[in-house]
Every structure is written in structure tokens, then in C-alpha cells.
């Protein structure tokens, strides 16, 4: 009997939330508009691989082989030749001025050494003030070096093969877009949910709800369940756009991805609920949401590899559900791995979700103080 009574307010809450969601353009916009904008922003604008570096060429050898080397560098798409120079001093001034970001120097004895099989040397000079570009240049240079097959028969002293798995084009959107699903999902879930509770407080409806027999759990679940749906719509929209615009591979199982997204969305909604118990206004809810998202973007491995971080930063990362969800997203989409590889992440996200939702329900007292 008590159970029955306790269940009804939940259905009333659910119904109400769905009606409100349908009428709220902001929520609908957040569901579809924001993913589209963010995806375009992150996907097109944020590139960690730098291509087409303006490059100078100082070819002292002036042989067929040296021209082939330059061609091979250009073919790697990392370098665009913007000019030929006559001396090293000119390289220095032009890179210093910013006209060029790289230079290729092919010495006099390049072809001779090549023919003798002594391991010919050419030099790539890079403006390393921007480490991202310089890394790309280094990468491009080594790729070009590997692909360089001079027409003249020559024995190479060393052969090194780099094989970029999962992302052979080394395309950063392949890496970034699956991450965007996670970042956007947690951002919108946290903010939408915190704002929805705080709005009730601001408009005085929360006061009204408190005097009704609705229990805390119904109230909180009523705020979680409808937004789960929003979350799934978002995942689908981003996946679809990522596929159409960026050709992000989907190598693993989509149903598995949806299953794994469940605890992550619940955890994000739980964080939103938790924030709603800390803040008073919708503006504060929004700020709290963004403040939480910042360390998530930096520490979860969304933009920077966690392995490169100092240990304390890695520990903080382990406390963020996004860290686990990113592993899941990249695992399923890029590597096509299954549940047998991802169950630890699944459990970690569930643990976090249960913890934060319980904490929010406890913090949410049915009083106005």
C-alpha cells in the first residue's frame, strides 16, 4: 500500500517533465543545436595535427635525388614549399619573420653519400616555438623519409617503420569527435538538470512540491529519467553528424555504446542534481556546470593524453566519469572492442553514478533551508 502511494508521485513527475521538455525550446535546442555547433567547432577548428607548414628549401645538391626528396616531403602533405633560398642566413631571417615554419636543407654531398650507401643526410629545420607544429613537422619528415625511395638504387642503413593503428591518416577529428560525445553529454546533462531543479526553486514550484506527499526519490528520479532520453538523442545526433561530416569510424557495436552510455548519463545527471542542491539561481547552476566541465576537458584525456600528465593529475582524472567514458567511446568506435575489454569502465561509471545520486538525494532536504 505504501509502495503504491510512493510510486504515483513519480509517474506524475515524469509526465510533467515530459510535457515541459516538449514545450521548452532551450532543452530542445540543447539536445540538437548545441551538439551540432560544438561538433562543428571542435571537429573543424580544433586540429592537433598541423599540415601544410610553409617550408623553405635550400637545395645545395641540385640533383634528381634531392628533388625527389623535396617532392616526397611535399607529398606527405605536412610541408608546402613557399620558396627556394640560397643560404642558411636567409632561412633564419624568414623563419624568424614568420614567413615560413620549416626549412629543408639538402647538403652538397647528399647524392654522393646516397649512392655510396653511407646513409645520406638532409636536414629539416622547424620553428618549434609552437610544439604542436614542430611535432607534426617531425612526424611528417620521418614519414617522408620512410617513403622516400630514390630511383637510384641505394642501400639504406636503417629502416624504421611506424604503423599508426586505428587512425592511419593520423587525423585528429577521428580522435576528437568520439570525445566530443562524452564532453557534450556530460556538459548538457549536468547543466540541464541542475537548471531544471533550480528553476523550480526560483519560480516557487519547489516550495509547492515540498508540501505535497511526493518523496525525495520520486522527485529526483522524475528529474533523471526524462533527461536520459535527451542524453540518448544527443549521443545519436553527435554520432550521426560525426559519421557524416568527419567520417568517424564506427567499428564496434552501437547497442554496446548505448548500454555503456547509461551509467555515464546517470552519473552526469546526478552531478547536476548535486549542484542544484548547492546553488540558488539558474545562473549559478550554469557557472557550476562550466566549472566542473573545465577540469574534465583538461584531465579526462579528451584533449591531452593522460599518460603525459603528472601523477596527481592522473589521479584526479580517475575520479571523473568522463575519463572512463572516453576510453569506452574510443574503444568501441575506433578499436571495435567489446564488453570484455570495457567492463571495468562500466563498473567504475556505475559506482560513480550510484554514489552521486545517493549523495544528492540525501542532500536534498524537503525543507526550504
Amino acid at each position, binding site marked *: 500500500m505504501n509502495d503504491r*502511494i510512493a510510486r*504515483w*508521485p513519480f*509517474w*506524475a*513527475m515524469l*509526465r*510533467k517533465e515530459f*510535457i*515541459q521538455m516538449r*514545450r*521548452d525550446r532551450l532543452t530542445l535546442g540543447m539536445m540538437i543545436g548545441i551538439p551540432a555547433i560544438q561538433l562543428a567547432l571542435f571537429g573543424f577548428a580544433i586540429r592537433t595535427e598541423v599540415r601544410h607548414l610553409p617550408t623553405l628549401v635550400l637545395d645545395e645538391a641540385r640533383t634528381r635525388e634531392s628533388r625527389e626528396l623535396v617532392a616526397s616531403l611535399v607529398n606527405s602533405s605536412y610541408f608546402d614549399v613557399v620558396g627556394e633560398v640560397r643560404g642558411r642566413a636567409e632561412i633564419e631571417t624568414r623563419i624568424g619573420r614568420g614567413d615560413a615554419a620549416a626549412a629543408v636543407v639538402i647538403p652538397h654531398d647528399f647524392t654522393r653519400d646516397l649512392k655510396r650507401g653511407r646513409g645520406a643526410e638532409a636536414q629539416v629545420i622547424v620553428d618549434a616555438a609552437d610544439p604542436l607544429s614542430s611535432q607534426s613537422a617531425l612526424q611528417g619528415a620521418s614519414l617522408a623519409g620512410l617513403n622516400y625511395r630514390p630511383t637510384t638504387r641505394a642501400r639504406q642503413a636503417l629502416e624504421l617503420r611506424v604503423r599508426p593503428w586505428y587512425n592511419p591518416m593520423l587525423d585528429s577529428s577521428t580522435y576528437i569527435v568520439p570525445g566530443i560525445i562524452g564532453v557534450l553529454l556530460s556538459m548538457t546533462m549536468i547543466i540541464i538538470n541542475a537548471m531544471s531543479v533550480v528553476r523550480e526553486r526560483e*519560480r*516557487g*514550484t519547489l*516550495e*509547492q*512540491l*515540498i*508540501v*505535497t*506527499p*511526493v*518523496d525525495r526519490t520520486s522527485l529526483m528520479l522524475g528529474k533523471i529519467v526524462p533527461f536520459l532520453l535527451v542524453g540518448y538523442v544527443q549521443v545519436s545526433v553527435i554520432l550521426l553528424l560525426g559519421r557524416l561530416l568527419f567520417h568517424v569510424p564506427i567499428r564496434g557495436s552501437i547497442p554496446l555504446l548505448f548500454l555503456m552510455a547509461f551509467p555515464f548519463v546517470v552519473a552526469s545527471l546526478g552531478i547536476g542534481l548535486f549542484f542544484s542542491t548547492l546553488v540558488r539561481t539558474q545562473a549559478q547552476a550554469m557557472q557550476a556546470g562550466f566549472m566542473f566541465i573545465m577540469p574534465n576537458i583538461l584531465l579526462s584525456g579528451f584533449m591531452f593524453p593522460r599518460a603525459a600528465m603528472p601523477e596527481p593529475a592522473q589521479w584526479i582524472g580517475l575520479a571523473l566519469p568522463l575519463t572512463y567514458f572516453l576510453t569506452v567511446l574510443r574503444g568501441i568506435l575506433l578499436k571495435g572492442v567489446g564488453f570484455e575489454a570495457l567492463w571495468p569502465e562500466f563498473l567504475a561509471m556505475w559506482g560513480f553514478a550510484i554514489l552521486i545520486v545517493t549523495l544528492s538525494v540525501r542532500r536534498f532536504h*524537503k*525543507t*526550504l*533551508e
Partner: protein
Amino acid sequence: MSAPTAPAASAPPAIITEALHKRFGDLVAVDSLTLTIPKGEIFGLLGANGSGKTTTIRMLTGLMPPTSGSATVAGVDVVHDPESVRHRLGYMSQRYGLYDDLTAEENLRFYAGLYGLVGREGKARVEEQIAALDFTARRRQLAGTLSGGWKQRLSLACATSHRPDVLFLDEPTAGVDPAARRHFWEMIRELAHGGTTILVTTHYMDEAERCDRLAILWRGRLEAVGRPHEITAQLGAPTLEDAFIALQLRDQAAA
């Protein structure tokens, strides 16, 4: 004005407070308030802004725990067990508690649902309320687009869908035109005739006159309590308004 309803001798009082006290930091919002309100009475809490009316209602509805003292509503100790009394009390706040983005009907259905009125029973109750409140033409209108008087009516309906024993109204007619106010008081009177106990706060003197009994709160203290004419007699003033102003002057003289 109809005669005050005489409380049945056998029925226990609907609201009892004893030395109810609420302090916010240094500010004493409600200062040892002791009141007994019999069943079926329309009881008015009269006072200026900041006199402790809203805080009193919030303590009685379990929205806020008192600093000390006790309060019983419909026989339940609301200080220690506010959840048990929720089914039996209704509350209409100053801000109406309506969802602007829900229609009138949806608001009614939502609140009825929270009180367990669902399915056929809930539908019947909502239809009954829509008819009683003359809401048929406006049932599909968003609550946010209703005028003040209609909002107030809808809010009252939402607060009473479960036919509560005790109804709390916090400045229900603020910002509503006189015709709507009169209509609203007719509905209140009808509820009281049906046995609902009503505690209403106001700072309109004409509304105070319509109450069976009144209490005047002044800076959280109970200054006078009784029927409207008893209060004027007690304070030696020709009208309630004069009595009210006399209190204010006395207070300023003391300060």
C-alpha cells in the same frame, strides 16, 4: 457576512501551536506563538511585511523547522513528522506554485497525481474542479498566460485537489482585482462550510474582516487575537485599520 462557524465541541482543534519560535541568526521572525484554531474556522493572520506571517505558515506546513516550540496540524506533530500530514494539508503560496509552461488542466492533473489521484479517479476529480471553477474555456491555456485572478483560482484548485482538512493560504489575493478577490472569498467560505480549516495571511483590512477570527502579528509577536470586532474593542479603535495603525504608532513610540 455569514456567521462564524461554531466549532464542534467534540472535534479536536485543527491547528495548535505552542511557543512556536523561529530565529534567523539574530532576527527573531516568530516569537513564541501560541494559537489554537478549531476545525472549520477561517483564521486570519494579519500583519505588515516581515511580521512573521509567511514564516509561521512555512513552519506549519513543514517547509521550515522551527527553532523551538511545537505545532500540531490535523492531529499530527508537524515539527517531527511533517511527511505524515502532507496528505491532509493544502498550501497556496504567494507565488502560486503553478507551472507556467503547463496548461490549466495539466497543472491540475499534475497536482492531483502527486496526491495519488490518478486514473479514472484523478480524471473525474480534475473534471469536477474544471467545472466548479468555470475553467472549461481556459483548460488548454498555458498557466503562464492566465490573468492574476485566474491564476489564483487555479492555484487554489491545485492546492485543494485532494480535499485537505487544513488549508494554508499565504497572501492569496495579492495583486488581484476586487471582483476576483470577492469571488475567491466565496470559494474560501464554501470550503470552510465543508469543514476545511483555513489559515490565511493578509494585509488587506477588508479581507481580515471576512475571517471568523484573527490574530495580529507584530514583529513576530502575537499582539491580539479574537473575532474582528473583539480586536477593535480590545485595542479601542473604531475599525481594524485604526487598530492596526494604533499598534504601529505604539511600537514606534516605544522604540
